[in-house]
């Protein structure tokens, strides 16, 4: 009679899971920064004065938002090599996370820019600010504070989306847990530990976002 949860076995697989958690962390951070950049690009496309480009941008956002991340991951994983672009699975995964969440980030950026009152733009015009100075000193400082909650949510959602990358053999936490399970035919410990690890990581991330919001809230209130 073996017990349901074996502590020695849990201790044995802990290093492998921790290595997986590091990859999860890297993928989340990488995906987050990729989504910040891709979001800006998608927003710029959608706001273009050329109708065709604007349609392309909006269509792309719609497509990325209404199809599953897993399929998008497969598209990058299978189609990029056919096009002669061979990337590490982690890089492919980061790119996929960046594209999928970039569409949501673009919407968040749009909301942030829309939250700036019309009078501010008029003031910029009448003070003859350059475009760069206007964004640097007036628009961005005001647009960033309202962005923090939604970007924070994006970060947490991204963390919880990283297990999907296991499907393309990225050696992140879920992949490590599955691997430990299939080697020993004991799934209780690795799966439970992985679940708890995700819970802890997302609670920490949520707390960090909360602190950041408070800080920004007092500065730009």
């Amino acid at each position, binding site marked *: 009679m073996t017990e349901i949860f074996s502590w020695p076995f849990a201790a044995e697989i802990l290093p492998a899971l921790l290595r997986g958690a590091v990859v999860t962390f890297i993928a989340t951070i990488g995906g987050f920064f990729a989504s910040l950049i891709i979001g800006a690009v998608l927003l710029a496309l959608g706001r273009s004065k050329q109708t065709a480009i604007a349609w392309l941008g909006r269509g792309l956002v719609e497509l990325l938002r209404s*199809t599953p991340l897993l399929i998008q991951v*497969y598209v990058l994983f299978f189609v990029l090599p056919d096009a002669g672009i061979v990337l590490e699975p982690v890089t492919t995964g980061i790119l996929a996370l960046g594209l999928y969440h970039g569409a949501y980030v673009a919407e968040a950026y749009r909301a942030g820019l829309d939250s700036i009152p019309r009078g501010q733009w008029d003031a910029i015009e009448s003070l003859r600010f350059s475009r760069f100075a206007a964004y640097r000193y007036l628009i961005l400082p005001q647009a960033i504070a309202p962005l923090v909650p939604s970007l924070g949510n994006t970060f947490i959602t991204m963390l919880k*989306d990283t297990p999907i990358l296991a*499907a393309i053999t990225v050696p992140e936490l879920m992949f490590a847990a599955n691997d430990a399970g299939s080697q020993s035919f004991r*799934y209780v410990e690795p*799966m439970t530990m992985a679940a708890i690890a*995700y819970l802890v990581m997302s609670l920490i991330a949520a707390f960090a976002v909360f602190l950041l919001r408070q800080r920004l809230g007092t500065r730009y209130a």
Partner: protein
Amino acid sequence: MALIWEYRFDFLAGVWWTVKLSVLSALLALVLAIVAGVARSSKLRVLRIASGVYVEFFRGTSALVQLFWLFYVLPYLGIDLTPLQCATLGLGLCFGAYGAEVVRSCIQAVPQGQLDAAAALNFSYFQTLRIVILPEALIMMMPLFSNLLIELIKATSLVSLITIPDLTFQAKSIITKTYSSGNVLLVTLAIYLVISLIAASFMRRMEKVLSRGRQTGQPA
């Protein structure tokens, strides 16, 4: 494209599973969301804490992790579920937790005057909930539920990883059979897009039905 036509029945079988799973888990999630959401705004502390733990736990761990846990760990605990039951339960629990937050915030958004009016009419707690709070809150919930339904439909693709032959699973197996990935994945993306659009328009219609006879319409 001839290839796609050759495998049309595989695609259709996959779509059938995806739709079936979306409907079943959406219904389970709706029930859980209303129960947990009402419990979270209840006066009883025990209920608030219990539903809070449920919501935080299932929102804090990812849907795929929950599916894997149900799929791999439950058999060791002596509970054998079919993959379909496993998937429905996993997605239902996960999206029920997200839905509970929607229900809670919409219940809180019901104006105090309505509650005062219900108290003045001597309604019991359940009468207030059934006649006043939920009908009001439901209209506010619809756009948010609509977003969640789209998220749920997209999340059903994860069940392909626990051996359910849904659309994603079929796409993957056609790729391994034919070594042709581009077209197959493109068609799969298009099918998901169509399913999402249909679901979104269905939810808009429901929203109209629910707000029929109200002059104020949906609050911003």
